[in-house]
């Protein structure tokens, strides 16, 4: 069945073609069912492949399927070929699984929208591109998928393009991603120049064989690749597009901007783990940027009143965690958090969508409250996801986040400060998530009367997906229970073959975990407990400020007004970018590129060509006397010369 890997991206492509070409004639019901079915078929195929892969011994869990040679130029070849290994299968399962659930959710959510078939076409196209990105076995094909998901992201953010702001948000995402993609592309160029190949196996094999840890060229490559990841996965400094991306329909936010696309950067780093292991500088860069992003995004999330924007900052923050994971060399932990995050964050967004559905598309949490009774399913699933993201023991987020935090302290690349900021961020996360829960579901409904009367639970096409993901958000972590809690962490062992080479490199270089053996056993549980206490403090503050004494936030923010204003305005990053980058660029574009380069040089060139031809013609046409015998004379002269040449030369 591994042979049939190409079916996985093919099904969504079929959906794209049918819905894209004939969707408008098919009727909403068929379009929605078709789009979801195709993803479902993909999911089934992946599941079968997964089972087949499990049957193989761990060291043989690796398979490539080449469809054909795509580019053959000299000794450089790039193929259309698919890679099946534990990492890609995990990603495929997450992507197709979550996509399937969200597709079903969309059937209900997008009900009655006039762009219905367009929506499902884009959504299927996105899944296709994402699967291409994941299953690619070379950098070039990965880049195709990478750009494909970026395109779909742009199309879906600006899905309701009638509103100017939505179109602007789409453009912003696209442009910011271009900056990252530029770095990614440069990285690929460097790989081609250095290794004369883009194939993962060849590149990683050559890198491990030829370069030692700290080789400068590897650092250059990995840093550039990480610039791409910064853009796609919304890390500092390129995160600014993600909050605005919430302009898209909520299922899009759930699927693309929470569960799948934004994690592409994490996947890419994990995929290129051999290269990153060879470059401790890049690893440190990733970990530092990851933890900084996690912290700052969490603080920004604390002050948001828009539920979707709050979740967007939360996503950025959690992506920061994943980068901390892969940045400290705990690739499996990063992927583990990627998976659990996909479950609970998609669930949070879908819950938010369900709330918007009930609140007549309002997203302001100040207008909500007390929805618990009217929307029980939404409330309970939202609460499960909140518990998971906060890292309450027993829920999925706990296992993955704790794994990352432990590795960031104890791992070979670990560092106390990274761990400390990570732990504080965990507390902040718990605070802003429970703040959202209390503001939305508890207390009194603060909405206008006509909206309040309208509040109702979502239809079953929306609640069933909520329940499915709710279950996953709770139990999703149990496949990775760490040893210290009596588990065997099968998830990590499943992924081990992928990261084996990195481990060998690390061992060869003598890089061992800072804390291991006896001291690890002593330390790990208390640290877990410490994190939990901090999380509880966060929840306690949220309870105090937003449920027990709602006047407190107003008083406290007045006391630290400057800090509050700074955070509330998102550290003025958008404004800084606007002044430092966007406006100068626009000014240069207008005064120099347009008024000078385009008008003077390019237009001058084109008009000049015409003028030269016309001027030459004005002179040369005098030769055309219209006098037949002149022509005859030149004819005879030509004959004389030709005869002379042929006969006498």
């Amino acid at each position, binding site marked *: 069945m591994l042979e049939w890997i190409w079916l996985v991206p093919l099904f969504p492509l079929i959906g794209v073609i049918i819905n894209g070409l004939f969707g408008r004639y098919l009727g909403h019901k068929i379009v929605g069912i078709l789009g979801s079915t195709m993803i479902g078929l993909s999911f089934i195929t992946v599941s079968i492949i997964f089972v087949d892969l499990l049957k193989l011994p761990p060291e043989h869990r690796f398979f490539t399927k080449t469809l054909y040679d795509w580019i053959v130029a000299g000794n450089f070849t790039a193929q259309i070929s698919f890679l099946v290994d534990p990492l890609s299968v995990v990603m495929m399962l997450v992507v197709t699984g979550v996509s399937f659930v969200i597709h079903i959710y969309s059937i209900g959510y997008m009900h009655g929208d006039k762009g219905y078939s367009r929506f499902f076409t884009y959504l299927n196209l996105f899944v296709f591109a994402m699967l291409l990105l994941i299953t690619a076995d070379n950098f070039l094909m990965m880049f195709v998928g990478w750009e494909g998901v970026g395109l779909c992201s742009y199309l879906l953010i600006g899905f309701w393009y009638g509103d100017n702001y939505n179109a602007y948000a789409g453009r912003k995402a696209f442009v910011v991603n271009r900056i990252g993609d530029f770095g990614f592309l440069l990285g690929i160029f460097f790989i081609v120049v250095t290794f004369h190949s883009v194939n993962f196996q060849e590149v990683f094999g050559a890198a491990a064989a030829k370069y030692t840890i700290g080789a400068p060229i590897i650092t250059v490559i990995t840093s550039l690749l990480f610039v791409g990841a910064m853009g796609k996965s919304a890390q500092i400094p390129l995160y600014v597009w993600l909050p605005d991306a919430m302009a898209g329909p909520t299922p899009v936010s759930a699927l693309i901007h929470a569960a799948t696309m934004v994690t592409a950067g994490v996947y890419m780093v994990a995929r290129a783990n051999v290269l990153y292991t060879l470059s401790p500088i890049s690893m440190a860069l990733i970990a530092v940027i990851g933890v900084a992003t996690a912290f700052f995004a969490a603080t920004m999330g604390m002050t948001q009143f828009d539920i979707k924007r709050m979740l967007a900052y939360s996503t950025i923050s959690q992506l920061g965690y994943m980068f901390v994971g892969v940045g400290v060399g705990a690739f499996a932990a990063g992927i583990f958090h990627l998976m659990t995050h996909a479950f609970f964050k998609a669930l949070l967004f879908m819950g938010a969508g369900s709330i918007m559905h009930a609140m007549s598309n309002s997203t302001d949490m100040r207008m909500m409250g007390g929805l618990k009774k009217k929307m029980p399913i939404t409330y309970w699933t939202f609460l499960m996801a909140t518990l998971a993201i906060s890292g309450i023991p027993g829920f999925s987020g706990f296992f993955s986040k704790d794994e990352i935090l432990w590795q960031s302290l104890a791992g070979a690349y670990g560092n106390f400060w990274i761990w400390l900021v990570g732990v504080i961020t965990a507390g902040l996360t718990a605070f802003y998530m429970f703040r959202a829960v209390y503001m939305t579901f508890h207390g009194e409904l603060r909405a206008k009367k006509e909206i309040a009367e309208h509040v109702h639970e979502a239809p079953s096409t929306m609640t069933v997906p909520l329940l499915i993901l709710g279950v996953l958000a709770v139990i999703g972590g149990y496949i990775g229970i760490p040893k210290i809690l009596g588990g065997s962490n099968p998830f990590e062992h499943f992924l081990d073959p992928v990261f084996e080479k990195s481990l060998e490199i690390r061992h060869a270089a003598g890089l061992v975990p800072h804390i291991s053996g006896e001291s690890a056993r002593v330390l790990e549980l208390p640290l877990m407990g410490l994190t939990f206490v901090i999380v509880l403090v966060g929840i306690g503050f949220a309870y105090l400020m937003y449920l027990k004494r709602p006047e407190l936030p107003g008083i406290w923010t007045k006391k630290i007004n400057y800090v509050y204003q700074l955070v509330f305005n998102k550290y003025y990053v958008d404004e800084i970018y606007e002044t430092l980058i966007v406006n100068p660029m626009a000014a240069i574009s207008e005064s120099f590129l347009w008024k000078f380069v385009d008008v003077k040089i390019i237009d001058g060139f084109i008009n000049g060509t015409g003028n030269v031809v016309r001027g030459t013609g004005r002179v*040369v046409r005098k030769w*055309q*006397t*219209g*006098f*037949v*015998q002149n022509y*005859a004379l030149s004819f005879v002269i030509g004959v004389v010369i030709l005869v002379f040449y042929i006969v006498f030369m």
Partner: protein
Amino acid sequence: MIPATNLLILGAILFSIGVIGVLIRRNAIVIFMSIELMLNSVNLTFIVLARQLHSLDGQIFVFFIMTVAAAEVAVGLALIISAYRLRATINVDEINLLNG
């Protein structure tokens, strides 16, 4: 019998006279006659060489050239007549619509 070379030179002389006629005359009919002269000089060359090379193929060619010339003259003169109807002249230096 004079040598064939002299007859060939006669052909060359007549041909050159025809060329000069085409180049210098402004009267379209005389230009046309000059062309006929050129054709005839070629005919002469054909016949001389046919005799020299013991072959009748050259004479056959002359036969065909005469046929084509007859057709050509008919059409050419008809063209001159229509040109004259249009412009009331057959001076080629006055028919210069193509000048730049």
